[in-house]
């Protein structure tokens, strides 16, 4: 083996392997891809939130010089007879099929060699609709007569959804239930009972690289080039749609310009595949920034939380009623409903818990996973609720949390015991960075100041599998074949570090081969904070396998122990020349036990994502203007394999959640999105950053099951941030905000309401 920098290679702030290529603008993105003879597709979208399509007039578009073809669902049926897809339900048509279910739904596509001509032609298509009554609100949708889908179509992939097959007359796509203890009896004996309802708004991922996919269908096999977080799933689902074996579908993914859960499962891939089959040419669709609002978004959530406490302030019962507005198509919403439902009672030790979590169809753009799989929406409710109870009982907000906190080894609501989850140390780290015990300036004049904290946790999608291949060439150089998608989080670098640690190589010398399902092995997806833990373990196992094979080779060659002969020399001895490979493989499947009918399992999650946050706010009481002056995010990531990359993940997630807390909101009027552009949908900019912004991981944490003690941290700092700010606002004003986002007007309205002089609403 080549010269060695001293270990450990893991646990170092190694610069990203691709940093130079990225900042010099030479890195590969799907957006750059051009194939010979490639057509560009432009989508014509529905203007109605719920309607029957009476007719689509494509004549003017088709007549525009330069237009190759205009495609509707009728053309697609000729190549894909059952053109419905989705990860949890096969409910989404590749193009609208006789009906539209949200304003913005794709209805037709213009294909042209020139993107601008396709765009112009799409503007010439008209459709006639017969408007249907629509339902937008999740509470209404629970009982509405208006049905978004006539019949539920669960995908056969998930065994636990089978009972929903063929169900009719409902908008409830999934009802997740968890029962622990006897909640009713515990409420009956409770000294105090509190019930509050909190709401989260619809928001979007806003990746800086909008969705883009290219399909190339040739002679019965397909190549997809796509900005996807889950190439293996894309292959499985496209192969199912086409009735092909997996080896006839190739999915290639270069770097991504952000994903955040949006680029999971099937997005544009089914559409470009169908178009390529119809046109018999390569087809590319790249969305504009504004079109992303109609692809996938984050669930609005309506959460009623009720707690019963004994005289000492111990929570003895909790009831969670969580309703998720999933929009027109289920996407991965049912998983969000389950995953976030699972931890919706919060990181507290409560013997009697009832959780009902519902995925509900409405006539809005579809909702899916977004950095936290619903955990941030639930924590918004349970951590505001925590402060409200503490205040009502006149208990210290921190001590109340300590008294009820779930601790190592104790069963969480699902029965899964807490393991290697530093909830209390994360909170203590926040308190330390907030100087919590020091006197606090409450402001003067028209400025009122307050501070608050929040803690939260999440389970990790399970059971999931990652497979890795480590290939040592005859000269000793190393390539790593993995399906993990580097979308900005730095996974290439960390995976190289893990392999380097085992093989005693320089991590910067390792080549990471990007996802290509013809080349790289299976991975469930780059999602839900799972890669460092699952793929990291697979890489570690693969590297150990390779190392063992080198040792076997050394013995075979009769080398004395500790000879440390460079690999190239061993290979020359073995093969008589510089030839051959050492191939190590690793498969990791986390330990898992399926929950019973009560949602109980002792192995519900491979590890726990833990986040805590603290915020200081300044509020102008004459206008409601709010400034977050200090923000502290702390996550338990186990051992930080690359502390710099971890810190960037934590701050990135924090900034994102800051937007979801204060500024971002998809506003609808009669089902029409009214602010679908970045001019009117405001993501935070540098000017919105808190003056003091601290992002750290819990020091000396260790996950016994993670690679070298590590676990994922991509989502942890999204969880508790919103309630920390909500609690800080309440601390400043003595007024509780129940709905996100916390805008200046929302604060001012709440203050006026409290004064008994409510502000007039617009007509």
């Amino acid at each position, binding site marked *: 083996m080549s010269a060695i920098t001293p270990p450990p290679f893991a646990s170092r702030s190694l610069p990203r392997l691709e940093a130079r290529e990225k900042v010099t603008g030479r890195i590969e993105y799907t957006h750059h891809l051009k194939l010979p003879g490639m057509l560009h597709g432009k989508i014509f979208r529905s203007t109605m939130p719920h309607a029957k399509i009476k007719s689509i007039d494509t004549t003017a578009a088709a007549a525009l010089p330069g237009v190759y073809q205009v495609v509707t669902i009728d053309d697609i049926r000729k190549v894909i007879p059952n053109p419905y897809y989705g990860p949890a339900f096969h409910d989404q048509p590749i193009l609208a099929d006789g009906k539209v279910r949200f304003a913005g739904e794709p209805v037709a596509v213009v294909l042209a060699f020139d993107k*601008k*001509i396709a*765009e*112009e032609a799409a*503007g010439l298509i008209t459709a006639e609709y017969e408007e249907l009554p629509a339902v937008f609100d999740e509470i209404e949708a629970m009982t509405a007569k208006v049905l978004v889908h006539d019949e539920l179509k669960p995908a056969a992939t998930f065994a636990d959804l089978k009972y929903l097959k063929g169900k009719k007359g409902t908008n409830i796509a999934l009802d997740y239930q968890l029962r622990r203890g006897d909640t009713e009896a515990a409420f009956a004996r409770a000294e105090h009972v509190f019930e509050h309802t909190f709401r989260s708004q619809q928001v979007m991922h806003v990746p800086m690289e909008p969705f883009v996919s290219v399909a190339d269908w040739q002679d019965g096999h397909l190549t997809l080039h796509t900005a996807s977080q889950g190439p293996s799933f894309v292959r499985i689902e496209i192969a199912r749609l086409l009735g092909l074996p997996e080896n006839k579908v190739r999915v290639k993914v270069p770097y991504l310009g952000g994903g955040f859960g949006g680029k999971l499962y099937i997005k544009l891939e089914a559409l470009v595949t169908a178009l390529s089959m119809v046109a018999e040419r390569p087809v590319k669709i790249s969305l504009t920034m504004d079109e992303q609002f109609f692809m996938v978004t984050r669930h609005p959530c309506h959460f009623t939380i009720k707690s019963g406490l004994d005289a000492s302030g111990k929570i003895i019962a909790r009831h969670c009623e969580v309703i998720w507005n999933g929009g027109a198509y289920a996407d991965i919403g049912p998983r969000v409903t389950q995953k976030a439902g699972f931890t919706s009672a919060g990181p507290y030790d409560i013997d009697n818990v009832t959780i009902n979590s519902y995925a509900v169809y409405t006539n809005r753009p579809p909702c899916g996973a977004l950095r936290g799989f619903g955990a941030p929406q639930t924590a918004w409710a349970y951590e505001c609720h925590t402060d409200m109870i503490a205040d009502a009982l006149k208990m210290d907000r921190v001590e109340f949390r300590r008294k009820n906190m779930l601790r190592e080894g104790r069963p969480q609501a699902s029965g899964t015991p807490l393991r290697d989850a530093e909830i209390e140390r994360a909170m203590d780290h926040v308190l330390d960075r907030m100087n919590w015990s020091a006197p606090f300036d409450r402001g003067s004049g028209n400025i009122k100041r307050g501070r608050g904290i929040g803690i939260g946790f999440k389970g990790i999608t399970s059971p999931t599998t990652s497979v890795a291949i480590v290939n040592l060439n005859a000269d000793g150089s190393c390539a790593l074949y993995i399906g993990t998608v580097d979308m900005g989080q730095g996974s290439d670098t960390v995976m190289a570090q893990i392999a380097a640690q085992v093989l005693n190589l320089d991590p910067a010398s390792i080549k990471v081969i990007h996802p290509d399902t013809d080349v790289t092995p299976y991975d469930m997806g780059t999602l839900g904070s799972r890669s460092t833990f699952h793929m990291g373990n697979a890489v570690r196992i693969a590297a150990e396998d390779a190392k063992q094979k080198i040792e076997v080779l050394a013995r075979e060659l009769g080398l004395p122990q500790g000879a440390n002969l460079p690999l190239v020399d061993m290979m020359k001895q073995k093969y008589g020349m510089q030839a051959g490979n050492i191939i190590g493989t690793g498969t990791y499947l986390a330990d898992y036990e399926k929950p019973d009918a009560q949602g109980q399992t002792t192995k519900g999650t491979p590890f726990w994502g833990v986040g805590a946050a603290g915020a200081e706010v300044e509020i102008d009481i*004459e*206008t409601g*203007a709010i400034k977050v002056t200090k923000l502290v995010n702390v996550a338990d990531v186990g051992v930080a394999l690359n502390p710099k990359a971890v810190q960037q993940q934590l701050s990135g997630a924090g900034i994102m959640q800051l937007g979801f807390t*204060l*500024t971002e909101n998809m*506003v609808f009027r009669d089902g029409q999105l*009214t*602010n679908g*552009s970045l*001019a*009117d949908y*405001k*993501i*935070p*900019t540098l*000017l*919105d950053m808190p003056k003091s912004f601290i992002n750290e991981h819990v020091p000396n944490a260790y996950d016994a099951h993670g690679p070298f003690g590590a676990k994922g941290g991509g989502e942890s700092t999204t969880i508790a941030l919103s309630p920390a700010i909500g609690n800080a606002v309440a601390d400043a004003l003595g007024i509780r905000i129940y709905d996100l986002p916390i*805008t*200046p*007007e929302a604060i*001012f*309205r709440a203050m006026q309401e409290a004064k008994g002089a409510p*502000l*007039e*609403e*617009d007509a």
Partner: protein
Amino acid sequence: MAALEIAEPEKLDDAYTMLGTEEGSIRPMGGGTALMLMMKAQLFKPSKLVSLRKIEALTGFSLSVDASHIRIGAMTTFSELEQSPMIAQHLPVVTQTMKTLANVRVRNVATVGGNLAHGDPHLDLPPVWSALGASVRIVGVDGERVVPAEELFLGYYETVLAQGELIADISVPVRPGWRFFYAKVTTRAEHDWPALGLCVGVRAEGEVIADVSLVLSAAVDKPTRLKSAEAALRGVALSDAALAMAADAALAEVHIEGDGRGSAAYKQQLLRVHLGRAIKHVMQGSASA
């Protein structure tokens, strides 16, 4: 965005000819920052754009010999004004306004004339020019005319400019003894279109507001002078009561519409608060005064 023709005439007369006098799909273009957004959104599909960037008569800015006013050519970019020591000295409110106006890439190409002709009530500079008492020289094939900046606007995206007419330059009086301030009030994020734009100028004599100039934008359909509020303040000593009366007068004289940046009632509150604060600010003579 479909293909289109861009012409770059070097003489005004050529520009008039290209533009014609019929309303249609031929438009003049300054920096193009607003037009491009409308074209990308397919709200506007020009057949031809007449770029004015090569017409020398529309460029440059200078202080008059008697130092009484500043002429600013319509094609002057915001960055040129932002970086000018002369503007900083004589029109500090313009320099101040630039700090939060769009971003450096926009300021590098956006022009004073294009910004006025666009007629968007959310823009930052039109209320500033109006409050300063600037006048706009309009030229066309039939000759020229001069209108006060505040009379340029007829309503939402509507101006007095006819097809074929161009803004040649503006003339901004230098007003010794006055202090101006532009309050850009955003509500959704720090960097946003204003929910309320308010340019306030005063000539103070001790604690007394000897004269005052107030122009409101963004919350209304065009930059609007708050005449009643001015009348309420003129000749009055600064006090909270006087400011409250001025705010009442302002709220009574304008019609504020709700939108994504705030409901009408909330924007009224913002006007009440920020009018008072801006006047106090300029009376104290701090910052960009």
